[in-house]
């Protein structure tokens, strides 16, 4: 099953790299039937490839984190954006953008300062959420969502303050953060994101069996040998790192973390050993396709990709709530 997801992802990557305002005949050039012009190869290597790579890893990060958070909270509605993790990351990133002149950041750390700030925001929110969710046992889906709404409102206030403080140039960057876009992708941006997301996804994948056991409740998981506290730390911090890195490079992209795990469960079952890698691959595929839509639907202009994922994801979310209530 995972091979099918991998095949879908490779297909989506190829199609997305080939399509756009400037079509690039990738397949036929690989087969040696035609060669790329200089313009085509520059566009492919410097603009389009980093863009589809970033879209893929960010989509993978959001989906695998959504799946792991749903398992950790034992809550089908947990999702990085809905419960405020993306908002926390965005607040961290926005704060860093506006205040970056005030700090003295060494040049070597500069590419990582934004991901770090976003990670700090995401980690703070995730820890806070877990503290709320575990204070009196498992409180059901509604409580987590209400807390998420409150946290989202708070991060919106924070982002509002920074928007108020920002100058014109910063304001444009901030707007981009709240809508989500892969528009300014480059290899320099891709490298830290690929590393951070690669490591944190690998860490999340090691938690698969323990997340299965957690579904029987925390004490039962402990009886079967799971160090629940360590598991919580692993998922919270790996998830926060993945989402933080994703938000730092692409802004808030909603609903990927919610929709993808549910689709993957419907297709092949609920065990995390399948769900986590399946969500990563499928999340990458859908995000690459959504980004393809964002840059081809209204050529030569470009839609924010967050609009597209939300337009698809929000109705799915409604359907899911109806299904959960039943």
């Amino acid at each position, binding site marked *: 099953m995972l091979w099918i997801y991998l095949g879908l992802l490779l297909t989506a990557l190829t199609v997305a790299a080939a399509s756009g305002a400037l079509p690039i005949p990738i397949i036929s050039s690989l087969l040696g039937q035609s060669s790329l012009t200089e313009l085509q190869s520059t566009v492919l290597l410097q603009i389009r490839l980093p863009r589809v790579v970033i879209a893929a890893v960010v989509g993978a990060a959001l989906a695998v984190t959504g799946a792991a958070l749903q*398992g950790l909270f034992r809550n089908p509605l947990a999702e990085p954006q809905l419960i405020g993790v993306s908002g926390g990351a965005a607040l961290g990133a926005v704060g860093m953008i506006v205040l970056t002149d005030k700090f003295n950041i060494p040049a070597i750390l500069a590419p990582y300062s934004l991901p770090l700030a976003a990670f700090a925001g995401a980690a703070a929110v995730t820890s806070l959420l877990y503290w709320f969710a575990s204070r009196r046992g498992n409180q059901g889906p509604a409580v987590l969502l209400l807390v998420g709404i409150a946290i989202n409102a708070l991060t919106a206030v924070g982002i509002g303050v920074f928007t108020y403080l920002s100058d014109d140039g910063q304001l444009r960057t901030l707007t981009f953060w709240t809508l989500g876009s892969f528009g300014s992708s480059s290899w320099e941006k891709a490298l830290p994101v690929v590393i951070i997301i690669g490591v944190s996804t690998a860490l999340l994948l090691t938690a698969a069996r323990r997340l299965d056991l957690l579904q029987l409740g925390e004490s039962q998981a402990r009886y*079967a040998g799971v160090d629940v506290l360590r598991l919580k730390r692993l998922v919270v911090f790996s998830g926060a790192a993945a989402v933080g890195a994703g938000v730092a490079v692409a802004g808030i992209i909603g609903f990927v973390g919610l929709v993808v795990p549910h689709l993957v469960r419907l297709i092949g079952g609920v*065990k995390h050993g399948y769900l986590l890698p399946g969500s990563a691959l499928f999340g990458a595929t859908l995000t690459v396709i959504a980004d393809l839509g964002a840059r081809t639907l209204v050529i030569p202009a470009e839609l924010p990709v967050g609009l597209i994922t939300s337009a698809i994801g929000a109705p799915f979310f409604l359907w899911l709530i109806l299904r959960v209530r039943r």
Partner: protein
Amino acid sequence: MCVLEHVAVRAGDKELLHDVSLTVAPGEIVVVLGPNGAGKSTLLKTFAGDLIPTRGRALIMGEDISRLSIAAQAAHRAVVQQSPPMVFDFTVAEVIQMGWLEDVVPSECFEDAYQSVVAETDTGSLLDRVFNTLSGGERQRVLYACALLQIWRPRALRQPRWLLLDEPTANLDVRCALELMASIRRQAAAGIGILVVLHDLNLAARFADRVMLLNLGRSAGLGAPRQVMTASVLSEVYQTEVRVDHHPELDRLVVLT
């Protein structure tokens, strides 16, 4: 040996257990009885390593339970308790297989272990069902199967193991309850030490090797059912009129309330 030595457990201002000593040897069934709030679940959770004694010691194979790693504890004992419903649609087979300790038992034993556990618990017809759609009694059986898989060992690895059960017959009808207790007896015969909290005095009288009677966090009696479960002691502990007769044909105690 699984041992509590003069254990006291305190939660806030309240002393849940006071100076309780109990040893569960491999191969014996110890039943914990007592009215609601007597400390039965606290006792079980102390054996399980969930609660750490504020005084006294809780030992497993001579070692302080809280000093053992969580994984080492899981290799020594399994626990069956009432479980909250699952959020996602795990199948029965997936739930049972969660009990498998992949770091302790070689994986080539898995098929043997799994088949024998499924046969022992009569869960073969449920394997493809979704756990959440089961009745309360069926769920109890599946969780019992999961625990049995956790303490299953090939011959070469048979160090002492314990099975702790908190009211395992609560949701079961008469026949299922008797079948479960018979299965528990088979586990004891195979060398597993059993600690089981029960409300049903007749099941206790019938299946216990020893009974521990708790009242208000203190031991009100420990020994063979005939010694501990007398009409006067039970009447006082439960604060209601209890009669205990010896049934000559069945040759066992019958408790009437």
